[in-house]
């Protein structure tokens, strides 16, 4: 036993190295598998306040861009409300109103890695929970995975584990959206039935089947096919409508009937 300890102490540099590397790999694996690891949630509050502090400074340089975006958004809403007034008498079914939008500010954002996250300045104190969808005025952004009191962490759509249920607007065909491109501007559509003929510029929207995003949130436009030989379903490249590199204010979507929907799905699966 004594020799063993002597051996350990003599080679302490190597063994300590081994121990620390094993520790870091266990962190990586745990974090990879389980979204929103405990360490990230525990440190959300600290990192959040540091990022907010830095944001207070950098915000001044973005003010004009934010103003322009806001006025564009107001114009769009005005058009929508005007059109709605005119259409109120029609027999058309009303769109569902189960969704509530909460405005939040992006305090940190990454686009240059394979696992990209955002941090928002709203948390459980403001009613935010895990698995809520996040959108910007231009389109889809991500899904909340971790919440602390005043901050939440969002898994970006440009994350290697992200998978979003989407559909093609013109013929309502269901497809899936993943991200394995090297650019934050482009995503990948998979599971496109081969008889569907897509043209450049065709719009892709959310399907509304995931309980996270309501139907019809803009995702992006079709760019080109990239099908490999021998596959029964096509895949394609799409251009995101959201500029992930330039996000300031986003909306967190609260699905009021989500629990009921999930319960119903579970119940019907049991039978």
């Amino acid at each position, binding site marked *: 036993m004594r020799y063993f300890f002597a051996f350990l102490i003599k080679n302490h*540099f190597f063994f300590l190295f081994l121990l620390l590397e094993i520790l*870091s790999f266990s962190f990586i694996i745990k974090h990879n598998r389980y979204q929103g*690891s405990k*360490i990230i949630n525990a440190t959300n509050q600290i990192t959040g306040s*540091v990022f907010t502090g830095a944001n207070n400074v950098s915000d001044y340089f973005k003010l004009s861009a934010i103003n322009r975006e806001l006025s564009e958004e107001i114009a769009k809403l005005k058009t929508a409300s005007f059109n709605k007034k005119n259409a109120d008498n029609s027999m058309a079914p009303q769109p569902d109103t189960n969704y509530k939008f909460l405005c939040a500010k992006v305090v940190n954002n990454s686009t240059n890695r394979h696992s990209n996250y955002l941090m928002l300045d709203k948390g459980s104190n403001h009613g935010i929970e895990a698995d809520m969808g996040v959108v910007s005025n231009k389109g889809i952004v991500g899904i909340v995975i971790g919440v602390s009191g005043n901050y939440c*962490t969002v898994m970006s759509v440009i994350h290697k584990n992200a998978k979003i249920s989407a559909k093609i607007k013109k013929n309502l065909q269901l497809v899936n959206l993943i991200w394995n491109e*090297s650019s934050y501007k482009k995503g990948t559509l998979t599971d496109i039935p081969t008889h569907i003929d897509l043209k450049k510029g065709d719009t892709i929207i959310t399907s509304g089947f995931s309980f996270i995003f309501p139907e019809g949130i803009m995702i992006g436009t079709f760019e080109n096919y990239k099908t490999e030989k021998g596959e029964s379903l096509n895949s394609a490249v799409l251009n995101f409508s959201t500029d992930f590199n330039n996000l300031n204010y986003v909306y967190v979507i609260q699905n009021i009937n989500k629990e009921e929907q999930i319960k119903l799905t579970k119940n019907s699966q049991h039978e």
Partner: protein
Amino acid sequence: MNNIITKNILRFIVLILLQVLVLNNIKFDGYLNPYFYILFILLLPLETPKWLLLISAFLLGLGVDIFMKSIGINIAASVLVAFIRPGLIKYLSSGKDIEPNMQAGIRDFGFRWFFSYSLVMIFVHNFVFYFLDIFSFSEFFITFYKVLLGTVFTLFLIIITQYLFINKKNK
């Protein structure tokens, strides 16, 4: 001695904040990003005990990781770099005398020594970082290309800061 410890702790904090608040917002071509915080390990005093070298690299990686939400990746890269450091210094300085109060920098060792020293360290760091980030070898050459660009970019910044510090000390 106390002075050196304070200086290194200060450098530790400043480099982490610089990395997560400033440098992580630099995105040339969408993904190219300098991982400059590694400078802390490069500049640690040569007589740092080996265990302290590993522990401080671990804490450095952890500090950057909790801000980047990438728990483990920066730790693994920094600890490996700290592990190769003593051997690398020994190999590069064979034939040279290392005096007790020399610092790992251009001023004491010269440009060529520091260049090869940083090149190896930064390359290893970037290599581990990018491959752990994607966690597969499936697109080896694309990832390797990123590693090379990241290495050149970081090396460039580190050499520049070396010259800034030399000028300061001469005045």
